[in-house]
């Protein structure tokens, strides 16, 4: 099972598109609370007879408290040694140190590094509270990070989208080859921006096709997820969104939420599905399960519904419409456009003529 633990709501950056619901009521988890969360995770994994535990440390910026992260990893490994673990940290990369990177290597921690690209693209939105860009703080570490276990996570915004394809190429040239990118769906998209986004996707698709046809290993979620869902008849909802079923996110106080986007410090929040003290709220859990059982009305009969974020990702639906059942017209438009580009790649890579 997959778990997300909010180490702290605090962050040293003030990114323009930050969606944290805990910004105005920021807290940090105590080490005792983190251990309680670990005990709860072990308990439900045992109950569900799942020997694999994947934990992602989240925030805020979790590396504000690196000692809490590595203490908790030690706690998991020593107290619950019967499980297999995969740990990951979602970080903005501004707080790396030699010691932190050594611990990341020592524990085999996967990094999800939030970077939006080249300096202009990155600093357009990922800035410190004082207003300065954060790129220069991260750049010295890019050469020493273990690329084998790092995903670069990129947000595409209206004010940096023309840099997008070049940004991915920039990271690839540094040795990174796993990319998770997504438009900031809640930005102020208009027709001109949409066309530029489409062109950027096409340019990146060209680059991706080139690498694939040369058998270079590269993962770009935008294309790989669409291609693989078609090739293997996978459903994106089952593969990547398992809210309320196979993924749970914990707030700093030990409240339980369906995924990262929903985390809040409010016990009365409609998406709070329990707490480590009281366990799950079964009614709310059942309601979430219903999300998986049927398609959105607007999506039924759509030929790409099984590989569309609008139809399949609870976080995207929630962040763009405030509802799990909602569907944003921009997300729908974007996904149709992207899926067509991904299929063009697929037709070149897998058509019967080849």
């Amino acid at each position, binding site marked *: 099972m997959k778990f997300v633990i909010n180490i702290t709501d605090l962050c040293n950056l003030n990114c323009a598109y930050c969606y944290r619901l805990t910004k105005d009521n920021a807290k940090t988890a105590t080490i005792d609370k983190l251990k309680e969360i670990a005990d709860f995770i072990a308990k439900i994994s045992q109950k569900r007879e799942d020997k694999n535990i994947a934990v992602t440390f989240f925030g805020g910026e979790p590396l504000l408290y690196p000692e809490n992260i590595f203490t908790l990893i030690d706690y998991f490994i020593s107290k619950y040694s019967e499980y297999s673990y995969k740990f990951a940290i979602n970080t903005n990369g501004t707080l790396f140190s030699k010691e932190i990177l050594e611990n990341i290597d020592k524990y085999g921690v996967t990094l999800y590094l939030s970077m939006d690209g080249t300096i202009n693209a990155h600093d357009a939105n990922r800035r410190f509270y004082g207003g300065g860009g954060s790129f220069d703080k991260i750049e010295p570490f890019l050469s020493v990070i273990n690329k084998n276990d790092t995903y670069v996570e990129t947000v595409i915004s209206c004010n940096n989208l023309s840099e997008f394809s070049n940004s991915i190429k920039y990271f690839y040239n540094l040795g990174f080859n796993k990319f998770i990118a997504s438009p900031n769906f809640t930005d102020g998209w208009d027709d001109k921006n949409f066309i*530029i986004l489409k062109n950027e996707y096409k340019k990146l698709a060209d680059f991706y096709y080139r690498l694939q046809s040369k058998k270079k290993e590269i993962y770009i979620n935008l294309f790989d997820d669409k291609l693989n869902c078609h090739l293997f008849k996978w459903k994106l909802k089952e593969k990547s969104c398992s809210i309320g079923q196979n993924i749970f996110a914990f707030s700093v106080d030990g409240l339980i939420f369906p995924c990262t986007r929903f985390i809040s410090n409010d016990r009365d929040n409609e998406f709070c599905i329990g707490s480590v003290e009281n366990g799950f709220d079964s009614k709310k859990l059942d309601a979430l399960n219903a999300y998986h059982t049927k398609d959105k009305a607007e999506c039924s009969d759509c030929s790409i519904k099984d590989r569309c974020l609008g139809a399949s990702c609870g976080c995207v639906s929630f962040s763009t419409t405030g509802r799990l059942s909602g569907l944003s017209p921009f997300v729908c438009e974007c996904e149709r456009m992207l899926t067509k580009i991904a299929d063009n790649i697929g037709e070149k890579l897998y058509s019967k003529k080849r």
Partner: protein
Amino acid sequence: MAFSIKKETRKPQYSLPIVVRNRRGKIVKILTTAVLVSSLSNCMPEAGLPYIEPVDRNRAIEIVEGKFKSDLFADIVFQRDVKLVIQDASGDVIDLIADGYNAEKKIIYELTAYYNVKTTYYNGVYTKNYLDPTNDILMDEEIDLIKNNSFGGYHICDIYSDYEDTISYLINKFIQYYKNLDSTSDFSVSTK
């Protein structure tokens, strides 16, 4: 553009390559690319430089115009950044600033991989300046209007890539189209 919710009806035309075995049952051909194993699972990267770099706009123009000269008309000259409004019989309009335009042959090429968005940040405020006249690109709806490189009596080549071999591929395809034009049509041409 008012973004809208629409059901997609298009179905992709590709599938997994079939595993081919020889007479002894040994697999001789399997899935050909890394994409199949990398996604949503662990992927061991092989870091390295892309084997080819994109080319800049000036080089793209050289490639495109060089191909026209070598494969179509040795003496063809293109005007740069020409504002055109093209209308077809049904009233649809394409409004663009052509990267390259030859009035005599009614040939247009548009480099849609090259455009510019400038973002400036000052005192907490972002200012966007984009799509300046020389970086005008064909709008999505306009691209949809161009069927088989043709619209309103003009021959339009959309160069959507900044990679040399894709640019060459697109221009070759366009030249092939141009050479195959019906010689009795209003837009008949004599080719080299």
